[in-house]
């Protein structure tokens, strides 16, 4: 099984990909409409909450964070695989990344944007949000740089802007292709503008190569730092269940994990929606699935390390939280997380499932669910069962407002992603060409060697 056919014509690549930008099918509009509706639900929940107060989320005084922060981490985690994998694989010259990295990076960008929404939604006084930005102001004061939340904001801003730049830079040659192939209209103007006058000259390619490589180098430590900083929101605090040294790697692993799962999901959807079977081949899918399996096992291991560390410590409060997770109100969700996160991926261990698309699709959705539950299980039990027993809460349950916003965030993400797929080429054309070209050369070489041997 080959990652890609070597004899595929370059013109055909252009045509196939450009076709995905053409007039959308009915299904596209249906999905887009649903996404808008879902987003609308989220927006109306937020408007209601903004006007009435955070209380409508049914948060309370120990349980101050709720689903907002849980879903925030979920989206941050989701963002990790795209750019990080793309960058790592780029550095490692794994050319099978080429057909899939574009949408993965887009996924990164959009899930970061979604995560950012949750920060805003979570803030009690959204209208004073600018207080947390470091800029010289007439109040003469600065935000608190000691706060992990500020590190978070900084890291996310860096990551988001770098990811967007990485995505954009990598897309410039494709934008030029789109510009050249598009009939006159707003889109052509847009591509002309965004392609920055790219012509594929030797000078452009030369600088392009170095730049792309450099940013990829920066992105790897950055991506690792982003999620470990998100982890330090928890690990830096004193709350039982959070104050765990293994949190940063645990979060990074979890992030990669959920990101990979999301890549599988979107891979399958794109492959069918845009008929990218030629490019998004099962062979590539198999590689991702194996990678995901490996990460799943890393995650499982780190999860076990965390429990073990808590269990063998003398920190009674943390132990109590762990016991509460396993046996208390949240037990179904906690065990659900263990099941979805550690048991379900075992499916990937079987070769015949590694290319079985329906199975993979279902599995990847379960993995995502598991990872969402993981984030919730980090947040809620610690709050409801914290250090101070007097404030343990009575089965706090998120209100419809919270659920509505979680729901809405999926709509928002889908909306952005759907628009992206129609506006920008979701498969990197020039890089697929490179892939084909290099594989052809390789093939020729090996053929020549073979003939020589004869």
């Amino acid at each position, binding site marked *: 099984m080959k990652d890609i056919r070597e004899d595929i014509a370059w013109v055909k690549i252009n045509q196939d990909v450009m076709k995905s930008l053409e007039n959308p099918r009915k299904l596209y509009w249906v999905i887009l409409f649903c996404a808008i509706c879902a987003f609308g639900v989220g927006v109306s929940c937020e408007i209601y909450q903004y006007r009435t*107060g955070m209380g409508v989320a049914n948060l309370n005084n120990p349980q101050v964070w709720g689903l907002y922060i849980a879903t925030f981490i979920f989206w941050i985690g989701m963002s990790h695989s795209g750019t990080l994998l793309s960058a790592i694989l780029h550095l490692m010259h794994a050319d099978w990344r080429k057909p899939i990295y574009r949408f993965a990076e887009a996924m990164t960008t959009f899930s970061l944007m979604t995560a950012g929404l949750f920060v805003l939604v979570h803030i*009690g006084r959204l209208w004073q949000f600018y*207080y947390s930005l470091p800029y010289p102001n007439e109040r003469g004061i600065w935000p608190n740089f000691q706060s992990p939340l500020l590190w978070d904001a900084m890291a996310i801003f860096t990551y988001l802007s770098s990811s967007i730049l990485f995505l954009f830079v990598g897309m410039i040659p494709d934008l030029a292709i789109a510009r050249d192939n598009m009939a006159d209209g707003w889109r052509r103007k847009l591509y002309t503008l965004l392609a920055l006058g790219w012509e594929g000259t030797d000078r452009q390619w030369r600088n392009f190569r170095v730049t792309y490589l450099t940013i990829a180098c920066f992105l790897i430590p950055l991506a690792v730092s982003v999620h470990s900083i998100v982890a330090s929101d928890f690990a830096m605090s*004193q709350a039982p269940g959070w104050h765990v040294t293994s949190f940063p790697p645990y979060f990074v692993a979890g992030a990669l994990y959920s990101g990979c799962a999301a890549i599988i999901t979107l891979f399958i959807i794109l492959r069918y929606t845009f008929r990218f079977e030629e490019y998004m081949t099962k062979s590539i899918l198999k590689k991702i699935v194996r990678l995901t399996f490996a990460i799943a096992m890393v995650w499982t291991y780190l999860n076990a390390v965390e429990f073990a560390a808590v269990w063998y410590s003398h920190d009674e409060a943390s132990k109590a939280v762990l016991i509460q997770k396993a046996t208390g109100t949240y037990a179904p969700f906690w065990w659900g997380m263990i099941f979805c996160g550690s048991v379900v991926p075992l499916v990937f261990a079987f070769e015949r499932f590694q290319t079985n698309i329906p199975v993979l699709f279902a599995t990847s959705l379960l993995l995502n669910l598991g990872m969402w539950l993981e984030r919730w299980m980090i947040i809620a039990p610690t709050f409801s069962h914290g250090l101070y027993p007097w404030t343990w809460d009575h089965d706090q349950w998120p209100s419809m407002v919270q659920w509505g916003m979680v729901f809405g965030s999926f709509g928002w993400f889908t909306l952005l992603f759907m628009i992206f797929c129609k506006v920008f080429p979701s498969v990197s054309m020039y890089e697929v060409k490179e892939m084909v070209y290099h594989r052809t050369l390789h093939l020729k070489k090996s053929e020549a060697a073979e003939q020589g041997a004869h």
Partner: protein
Amino acid sequence: MSVSNLLENWSQFRHTHPVDDKPHDPYKWAMSIDLDACTGCNACSIACYAENNIPVVGKERFQHGQQMHWMRIERYWDEDGREFADQGAQFLPMMCQQCEAAPCETVCPVAATNHTADGLNSQVYNRCVGSRYCSANCPFKVRYFNWYDYPTDDAVWPAEMSQQLNPDVTVRSKGVMEKCTFCVQRLTAAKSVAKSEGRIVREGEVQTACQQSCPTGAISFGNLVNPESRVHKQWQAQQVEIDKDKQTKDEKEEGSELRGYRIFEDMRPYPSVMYLERVRESAV
């Protein structure tokens, strides 16, 4: 932003609290609460409502855990499974412990909560953006968030009731965190008077609302660095030192006869509130 300021005063900026050589002078407000005298009557809690414009949230919001009492009276039972609570209950007034190394302060993204020069953990309502991280990181869970806009809520402060509001204390609107301030408005007023006379605040000159109302005098409040103050004497008698995370008395045998302790001392928040253990007669 002056980098010159940074370089000039570098050594000042590297001091830590309270374990480093940065003593509070001339004020360090502290409290001691005698649990043996506390009867759990709630007078302090209501005094706090009256003094600090705390909203009454109503039944439904209380049910959701959105109550705002800065000072709550906790009631604990014996945990040895006895049939009747025949040793009575344990009451414990819990409010912001004004930690010297407060876990809430470091995590606030906008620096709405800081440590003041007289040893209080300040909460600045107008600066707060409502991330609620401070509450998440507070070991005592004594920070209360305004889940709704109580000032405009007619059930909380109808026009008549709002006339009772203390003008010295900001009325908190929705989305801000609040907590016990050791009645900072009273402290500031007393300090202002003392400043004008060129002295420090005398013992007994200022009382917190809870202390003032407590019928059994279980709450002592004052300036810990003033050797005249009752709080100072009590802390000294109980051999509780503010900058220790393990008291030296606990290593000595006679220390076990002393009742003073601080909650979660070993987590090193260095609370400013010392509790005196409840005593039970052994003869009955």
